[in-house]
């Protein structure tokens, strides 16, 4: 690869990007607990049609029969599902005066990220659908999108305005009974995003949703459905930050992607939920089901940067149903202090000539545990399927752990599978080398970690990559003495 003057210049330019805001909104909150009545009440509150209410009830009835999965390499106190409020809606417009009431430590983090309220508005070219405490309160750039026939709205709105699309696709990739958390989500999801790209349309901007958890004690059950019709393209960004809270907060989202023939979906996530404090107290439980379906010649690419949450349980997956379809998974998972992450992907090859790539970078510091769990499944019909997997782990200190659980199931002899894995440790020699060049230890670690994660950071849209880089630095602050 040539390294031109232009590229050199680009690398030298200092890139700055700021994002985010915080709001304190009086909420209308349901009483704690879950029952058929609550499910019906949620559906009514959202003025949903009967088919939707029934769909939720079916999910609820399955959920009641199910047990929480225990196979993941994480230890935590199971949430009491009857001690959670399942609906909370903002009942007034956003107020920005109350920043004083926010945990100063969190404000400090925001400051480090360079976040200001005004700058949020400057996100030119990025349409933001803000999900705050379960109900979408703002949608921008709708007009530009509408001109192209693109639908980008909250899922509740989509249920009302585009029932034919929702009914056709909802639950087709992640069925109601798929797993314990997906069933729970299907029963009680409060809101989320919906996106439809018509045939042959290339979405002209990055679509993005900023999720928050604002209200103590309310679980978040987001539901996202992205449909890329034949020969269309969309890049979707999802990013989150959450306020510090003492008690654990449950988050069980479901994301379904559908890429029809020749379509491409790029789904990028930066997740920075409260990971708990240095003693491991508090923090978000993040149990997410994300899955995409590829039809003929379609491509789905998942990129995630996971720095937050006390517990992460998340496996963005691809069902490569159509011939020649492509699935990709690029992940950076950082755990510090007492965080636990069990994350990875599933690549299910059904069609002929399907290809998948998995690049996973795990970084563990403090007393944290970081596991990669990945399944590559080649079905009998999937002739000439190919997979390449690379799992790298970086350890900092002597008290953390990195684990890799690769599962490979091959039922077709023509398959080609490659799996590479490395584990390394940030060495004192590397740190001293940086120190000697005038770079202090904190900055040296950031540099080494960014270098380690580069392959994945490069897959993110530029502004997101810069944001992610900063998050990596903040998450690992103080992790080496």
């Amino acid at each position, binding site marked *: 690869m040539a390294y031109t003057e232009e590229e050199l210049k680009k690398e030298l330019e200092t890139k700055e990007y700021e994002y985010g805001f915080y709001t304190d909104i009086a909420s209308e909150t349901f009483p704690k607990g879950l029952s058929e009545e609550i499910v019906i009440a949620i559906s009514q509150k959202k003025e949903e049609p009967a088919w939707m209410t029934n769909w939720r009830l079916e999910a609820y009835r399955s959920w009641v029969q199910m047990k929480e999965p225990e196979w993941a390499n994480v230890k935590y106190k199971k949430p009491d599902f009857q001690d959670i409020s399942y609906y909370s809606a903002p009942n007034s417009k956003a107020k920005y005066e109350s920043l004083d009431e926010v945990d100063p430590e969190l404000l400090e983090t925001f400051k480090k990220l360079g976040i200001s309220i005004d700058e949020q508005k400057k996100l030119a070219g990025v349409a933001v659908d803000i999900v705050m405490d379960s109900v979408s309160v703002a949608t921008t750039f709708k007009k530009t999108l509408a001109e192209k026939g693109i639908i980008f709205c909250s899922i509740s709105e989509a249920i009302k305005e585009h029932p034919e699309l929702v009914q056709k696709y909802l639950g087709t990739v992640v069925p109601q009974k798929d797993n314990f958390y997906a069933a729970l989500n299907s029963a009680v999801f409060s809101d989320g995003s919906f996106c439809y790209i018509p045939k042959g349309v290339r979405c002209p901007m990055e679509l993005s949703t900023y999720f928050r958890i604002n209200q103590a004690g309310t679980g978040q059950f987001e539901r996202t459905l992205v449909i890329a019709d034949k020969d269309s393209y969309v890049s979707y960004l999802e990013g989150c930050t959450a306020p510090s809270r003492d008690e654990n907060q449950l988050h069980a989202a479901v994301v379904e992607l559908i890429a029809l023939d020749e379509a491409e979906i790029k789904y990028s996530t930066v997740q920075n939920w409260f990971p708990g404090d240095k003693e491991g107290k508090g923090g978000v439980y993040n149990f997410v089901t994300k899955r995409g379906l590829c039809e003929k010649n379609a491509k789905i690419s998942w990129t995630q940067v996971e720095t937050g949450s006390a517990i992460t349980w998340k496996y963005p997956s691809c069902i490569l149903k159509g011939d020649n379809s492509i699935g990709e998974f690029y992940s950076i998972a950082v755990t510090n202090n007492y965080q636990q992450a069990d994350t990875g992907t599933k690549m299910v090859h059904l069609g002929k000539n399907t290809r998948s790539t998995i690049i996973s970078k795990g970084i563990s510091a403090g007393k944290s545990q970081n596991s990669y769990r990945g399944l590559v499944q080649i079905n009998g019909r999937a002739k000439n399927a190919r997979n390449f997997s690379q799992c790298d782990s970086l350890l900092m200190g002597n008290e953390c752990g990195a684990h890799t659980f690769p599962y490979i199931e091959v039922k077709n002899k023509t398959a080609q599978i490659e799996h590479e894995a490395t584990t390394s440790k940030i060495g004192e020699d590397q740190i001293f080398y*940086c120190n*000697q060049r005038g770079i202090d230890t904190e900055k040296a670690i950031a540099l080494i970690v960014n270098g*380690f994660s580069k392959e994945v950071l490069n897959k993110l849209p530029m502004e997101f990559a810069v944001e992610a880089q900063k998050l990596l630095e903040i998450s690992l602050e103080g992790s080496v003495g």
Partner: protein
Amino acid sequence: MLKIKNLHAGVEGNEILNGIDLEVKAGEVHAIMGPNGSGKSTLAAVIAGKEEFEVTEGTIELEGEDLDETSPEERAHKGVFLSFQYPVEIPGVSVTNFMKTAINESRKARGLEDMPANIMLKLIREKSELLEIDRKFLSRSLNEGFSGGEKKRNEIFQMAMLEPKLAILDETDSGLDIDALRIVANGVNKLKSQENAVIVITHYQRLLDYIVPDFVHVLHEGKIVKSGTKDLALELEEKGYDWIKNETLV
């Protein structure tokens, strides 16, 4: 510039440096020679402030300031540069990015703004030409997959970029073929001025044909046992280190 008095240092109670006295003035080039295990690299690391080594006695002063309690990065900010005998690899961090970070961190310590991109670009162009470094080389991950010669050339490139007051070259000649040796030495000579000083640590006389020292010191068992001019290096080359060992026994 650098004043070392009665320096004793070691690792976990094992003394490696046994009372070193050395004074290096601005504008001078000093060569430190000696057999394996005589403490040459330890001396370099102790001057750079590597925490693994404990200074048990004596002082190191840089421009009249005691360096005791000064972190390695602070020493770097004050103008100490160490060309490593074994430069470490940092995967995914390009030479350009590494240099940009190093320069801006030093500037920050001095209360300066980041170096503007166009000035840095000019600097990189100038210094890479000086060391006959290919542009592509700068985009590669720091030291990853570099040959021995490339690593050393990269060290001197960094030195050229950082313009230190005191540069310590720890066996920069090892692993260099004759052409690379000439390029590296040429680079060091061009960077030499009346304001800075260079300490060259080497086993062999060869490098000193290119970087001509004002003084040569011979280190043996953690002590400077002999000092002289360039001729001492030639004498050493001829007689071997056994000569020094025998002499110190007497």
